[in-house]
């Protein structure tokens, strides 16, 4: 998100889900769309079915490859080199959209200079891809009438995730594939409301709508609206919060609906940090592994038991409606927080219904300015929607970029933090599968889903399996510099030689004991897709 914000001025999906189906070409990179976003994958398949060109760039064979025109199997962590190489071809062969670059963008010369380092010889060496394949992919993308880029955590969960995203944004601007149907740079967000929770200011540096807490003018507006004076100092990010809890500078945490003991990198460190807190209150619908560490646990109502809105990955705000009464004595999350605020003597927390909260959000947030429950009845609205009659925005940056001119960022290739060596010769990649979600707090409580997949499997290429004497179904021990897990092996041709793949869905196999907490310096996203490990059969 930070990457897109620098380049375009806004970090969200530029186009819409339905719009992807209309593209002439799609580059799907760092996304296993059929597993993680199955219904969005339908659009990619439709596009390919209609004769569109689908380029899949992924070290792993994924279901989408069946529908792809080209499958680029770049080495893990070499995305910047691949994209840089494609841009070099586009510039060298005169396929760039010079009108678009001149009228809509700035800093192109810096990008062009940086491309000097991306000769196809070097790119081919880094990515392991034949030069001809890179050339063909570049031509396919650049010469299609409209080309969209789709990416997910495979791009962002890396120590150079911001570089990855900026390179993709550069690629799109270079070919004029921004601000028109069937184009754009489209990050697919993981959770139902991860876009919304960012929009709502659940971030340490911004209020709602990405308004900086450090900006005096903005802070004054919020101070006036909320009737208090506000802290001008940006807060800590999630990882930093746990580090601070470990050091004892953060003493109390109010944690809602998350399970960091399972989902965060270097899980043992997180657990220790939470245990050191003076006070931990957890609000959740189940007694998660994290909730077990709490001093007080507050029972929350599930999505089916409350009114509200979610904002999806294409910025669409949609209505969540109550179907049943809260189970037992559980209560909606907003209600619980409001009760605490009132008990702590706060003013401005009296709401009868979530609709009133949305009205307050609309008053304080330009992009949500035209949102109100009665307008969201049929299909919702996509932000920016600044006024009560605004129809919402399906494609961003149509006339101009949010920040004015699109800013080319020079590309520079950096390797991942922890390269494989003699002791830890394999690369571990982590991800999701169709049948489970995140820490599986929800999905493992669904009998059928549990029946289908009840335990973790580490995927290993047949070559590696043979040389290590591992057979399908063998119990193996995967070890990294931070920890070890024991898990059954699945011999899978889709996994590239030299790599392993695991999900992080199963609490019995805490994959994140292995992953490394090294973060991207800008976005602070941990490098979950790349760490060095070794694997051996358990005797």
């Amino acid at each position, binding site marked *: 998100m930070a990457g897109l914000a620098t380049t375009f001025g806004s970090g969200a999906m530029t186009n819409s889900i339905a719009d992807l189906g209309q593209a002439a070409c799609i580059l799907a990179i760092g996304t296993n769309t059929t597993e993680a976003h199955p219904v969005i994958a*339908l659009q990619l398949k439709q596009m390919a079915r209609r004769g569109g060109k689908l380029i899949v760039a992924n070290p792993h064979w994924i279901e989408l490859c069946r*529908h792809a025109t080209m499958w680029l199997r770049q080495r893990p962590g070499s995305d910047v080199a691949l994209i840089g190489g494609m841009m070099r071809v586009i510039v060298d062969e005169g396929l760039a959209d010079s009108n678009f670059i001149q009228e809509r963008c700035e800093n192109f010369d810096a990008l062009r200079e940086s491309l000097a380092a991306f000769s196809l010889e070097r790119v081919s060496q880094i990515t392991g891809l034949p030069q001809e394949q890179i050339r063909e992919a570049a031509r396919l993308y650049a010469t299609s009438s409209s080309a969209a880029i789709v990416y997910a955590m495979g791009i962002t969960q890396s120590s150079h995730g911001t570089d990855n995203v900026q390179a993709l944004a550069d690629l799109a601007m270079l070919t004029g594939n921004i601000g028109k149907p069937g184009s754009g740079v489209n990050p697919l967000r993981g959770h139902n409301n991860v876009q919304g*929770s960012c929009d709502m200011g659940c971030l340490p540096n911004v209020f709602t709508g990405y308004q900086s807490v450090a900006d005096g003018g903005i802070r004054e507006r919020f101070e006036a609206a909320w009737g208090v004076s506000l802290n001008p100092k940006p807060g800590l990010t999630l990882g930093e919060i746990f580090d601070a809890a470990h050091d004892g500078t953060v003493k109390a945490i*109010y*944690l809602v609906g998350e399970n960091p003991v399972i989902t965060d990198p270097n899980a043992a460190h997180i657990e220790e940090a939470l245990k050191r807190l003076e006070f931990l*209150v957890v609000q959740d619908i189940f007694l998660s592994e994290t909730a077990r560490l709490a001093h*007080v646990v507050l029972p929350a109502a*599930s999505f089916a038991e409350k009114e509200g809105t979610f904002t999806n990955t294409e910025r669409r705000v949609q209505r969540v409606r109550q179907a049943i009464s809260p189970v037992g004595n559980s209560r909606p999350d907003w209600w619980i927080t409001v009760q605490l605020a009132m008990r702590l003597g706060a003013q401005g927390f009296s709401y009868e219904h979530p609709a009133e909260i949305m009205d307050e959000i609309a008053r304080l947030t330009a992009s949500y300015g035209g949102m109100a429950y009665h307008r969201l009845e049929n299909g919702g609205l996509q932000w920016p929607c600044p006024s009560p009659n605004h129809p919402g925005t399906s494609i961003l940056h149509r006339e101009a970029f949010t920040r004015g001119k699109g800013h080319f960022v020079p590309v520079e290739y950096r390797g991942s933090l922890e390269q494989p060596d003699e002791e830890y010769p394999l690369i571990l990649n982590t991800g999701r599968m169709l049948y489970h979600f995140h820490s599986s707090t929800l999905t493992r409580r669904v009998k059928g889903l549990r029946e289908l997949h009840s335990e973790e499997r580490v995927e290993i290429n047949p070559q590696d399996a043979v040389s290590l004497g591992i057979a399908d179904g063998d119990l193996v021990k995967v070890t990294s510099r931070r920890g070890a897990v024991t898990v059954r092996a699945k011999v899978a041709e889709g996994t590239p030689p030299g790599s392993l793949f695991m999900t992080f869905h199963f609490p019995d196999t805490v994959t994140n004991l292995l992953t490394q907490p090294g973060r991207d310096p800008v976005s602070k996203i941990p490098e979950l897709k790349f760490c060095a490990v070794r694997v051996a059969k358990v005797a």
Partner: protein
Amino acid sequence: MAKVTLTIDQKTVEAEPGDPLLEVAKKAGVYIPHLCYMDDLPSYGGCRLCAVEIEGVRGLPLACTTQVTDGMVVRTDTAPVRELQRGVMETILSEHPDRCLTCHRKIHCLPNWICLRDDVVTDRCVTCAKNQWCELQQVSEFLGMEGTGRFYEEGRSWYGAREEIPLERENPFIERDYNKCILCARCVRVCDEVRGVGAISVTYKGDKARIDTPFGIPLHETNCELCGACVDVCPTASLMDKTTKWAGLPDKLVSTICPYCGTGCQLLLHVKGERIVRVSADAEGAVNKGQACVKGRYGLDFVHHPERLTTPLIRDNGAFREASWDEALDLVASRLGDYRGEEFAAIASSKCTNEDCYILQKFARVVMGSNNVDHCARL
């Protein structure tokens, strides 16, 4: 292109040239019986039911494969049309158990009543979970069918004439009973043309023809993603949601958004009392247009899981004890009162609603004076 004007049963209708007549009629509120046509997919012309009369056109063309033209005059409710449709239905029903259609007591019964009559016959309406919400039954009633007619009399009907096909219910979510299949091929088309999966197809020919997986292996061993799209389009009880097929008709349908990934699929929760008894994909969904995935469709049982937290818990001497809201809230408020500013952090959830999230960051900033608020966006 300019719109065309046509007449359907004396109604004047405007439409885009080239639109399927069946679709145009549907939008104009004229029902033409059909069993294979599906919205948003190319016409298939498989069930042969949607015959109509068009002035100046020979025979009785199918409404689904006929493209509308300007000045077209269509009649859907004439004697020859209905006779042909009933004839087609007879052939279709000869492949399908029909007690649910022909029982003389049907009009007295409510869904899921236990029938004590006719209990020597194993195929009664009450033995079919789709009874009263079955598309085949609805079409049959619309056309006033009385059993399978001449096929029945000639002993060529479903009863006795066919070998029973064993049920396939090895996967946890979708049950397949091809004894009730009428070979409309909707499931095959939705799986291939909409989902891009193609786990099933029409296998064999003639009276042996049936829908199946490659080599007849169980569904979950194919590349099937168990999305349930085939169940949604099945006009009979051949494809059913395994766990909820007997849940009966819901009290209400509540349209809401799936709580799993960031796609934002709109789902219909079928609610009976205080329980969600079934979930289907909402055709009105802005993003998903009637599609969902295995998690959205079959993965919402967690709502009713016995391990749901139902009361506040307070840790006392290392173990949790149950507490009232007042006690728990008072305790949390008094403990949080000891911390201000940077000593405090709030961790929000991207599973919660915008309103929940807004209130939490407002709480951290206004009440606790801390900007230490974040969530798992980075994971």
